[in-house]
């Protein structure tokens, strides 16, 4: 009973490590090929599919989150008569944490799953095999543009997310609830440090971009070539990406804004 359990745990552990190894090799091999100038067209097309097509969901969610955050901050701060510093709280929380994390999660659900499904289907219908048999490496032609597109898109989407969320915050906090607009913006300007708040948030977004596109591409490439296999791989992409984003975010926050204990 216990032995059986341990055995399965061991197998799961080994499979996990071997998958991680294969995924790393795959990633390195795919990234090696690009960027070549000939591939700019491929990259642009993926940027459109992965990035531009995600803008809608990012904008809608950002506005809603900015609005609701503003609402919460305002009611809490109003207890201390500090409702005019809504802008400060909003900006710091968004730039440092919620911007990259929420954008990453949305990106995994919108673009990551699509990448996995597309590559998985190409594998199932032997399009990857036939491409390889023509002497064209699918790692360079299919995987690499998607990896780069994900890596570039996520920071840009995070920028859009932050801007729209702050706009949502202004609409609710200033125009609706009536916080003072002047101190909203000046408070934000004084409190936000370009590197410490904005820069580090962008680095997080870049890391999440690498993670999500890596997971999505590997899951698609490694999917069992059946309908059920693709569906399982798509689910795994979303689940693994979300866990990876949240766990990495915690580690990055510890490293970037450390010294919490002292």
């Amino acid at each position, binding site marked *: 009973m216990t032995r059986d359990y341990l055995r399965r745990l061991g197998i799961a552990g080994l499979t996990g490590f071997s998958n991680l190894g294969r995924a790393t090799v795959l990633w390195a091999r795919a990234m090696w090929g690009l960027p070549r100038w000939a591939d700019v067209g491929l990259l642009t097309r993926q940027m459109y599919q992965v990035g531009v097509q995600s803008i809608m969901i990012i904008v809608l969610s950002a506005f809603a989150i900015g609005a609701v955050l503003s609402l919460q901050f305002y009611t809490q701060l109003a207890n201390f008569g500090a409702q005019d510093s809504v802008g400060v709280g909003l900006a710091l929380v968004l730039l440092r944490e919620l911007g990259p994390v929420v954008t990453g999660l949305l990106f995994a659900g919108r673009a990551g799953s699509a990448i996995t499904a597309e590559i998985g289907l190409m594998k199932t*219908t*032997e*399009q990857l*095999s*036939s491409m390889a*048999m*023509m*002497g*064209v490496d699918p790692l360079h*032609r299919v995987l690499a543009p998607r990896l780069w597109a994900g890596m570039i898109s996520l920071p840009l989407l995070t920028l859009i997310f932050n801007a729209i969320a702050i706009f949502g915050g202004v609409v609710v906090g200033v125009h609706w609830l009536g916080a003072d607009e002047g101190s909203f913006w000046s408070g934000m300007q004084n409190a936000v440090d370009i590197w410490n708040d904005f820069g580090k948030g962008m680095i997080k977004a870049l890391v999440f971009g690498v993670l999500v596109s890596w997971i999505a591409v590997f899951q698609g490439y490694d999917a069992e070539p059946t309908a059920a296999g693709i569906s399982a791989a798509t689910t795994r992409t979303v689940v693994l990406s979300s866990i990876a984003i949240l766990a990495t975010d915690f580690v990055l926050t510890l490293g970037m804004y450390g010294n919490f204990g002292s």
Partner: protein
Amino acid sequence: MDQDSLIEISGLRFSRGDRVIFDGIDMAIPRGQISAIMGPSGTGKTTLLRIIGGEVKPDAGEVLVGGYDVCRLSRGELFELRKDIGMLFQSSALFTDMSVFENVAFPLREHTELEESAIRDLVLMKLNAVGLRGARDLMPSELSGGMARRVALARAIALDPALIMYDEPFTGQDPIAMGVLLSLIRRMSQALEITSLLVSHDIHETVSIADNIFLLADGKLIAHGDPQSLREHPAQDVQQFMHGEPDGPVPFHYPSDDYMFDVLGNSV
């Protein structure tokens, strides 16, 4: 090997799980001729093509293509070698996000520096050869199975490779298209001296076109030679296959339990 052969296979062994697919196969595919691989469904004909193309690694043995051992080539060398090999997949495997024209143009765009106008001419020429010049703007999802197969054929021959492997090119073709494909394959091998390796179940067509036939069954090469000699081959299993008889030493069924036992299950 007395002849000049493009592909030389020796001592090939391969299994999938417990199932032995190839149990020691030696064969030599002559250069510039049409060779056919035949055998019961599931014997591993497709697998053999994949091994020759370097996509599947055998457990043991040597596979030389144009003098290179495909199992020992690096990834880069393998992709270089494949530029000279065309393969028609059993499933056609067209790129679903590209039109018919772009599918056929794909290898040209990837491997040549040709001008757009030259690419256009070549693509239309290849599509014309398979009778689908008018279908160039369709997407693969708008093609019938037989049409998709002919587009895939046009794509496989786009670069005029030295070796073309056809995995069942005749399935789903009407008699007219069939005749056109046969003469196309024959013409390419005669005029361009392309080596053709053909997998097919259509015995009459294959016999009419092939210079050599290799007969696989049960993981072994059971016979090879020109069509005439195979027809007159003394062995019973060769006779059974060449004349399409269900009863004989070659089993029709995938290995299984006794039928009665399977159907009646536990009740016996």
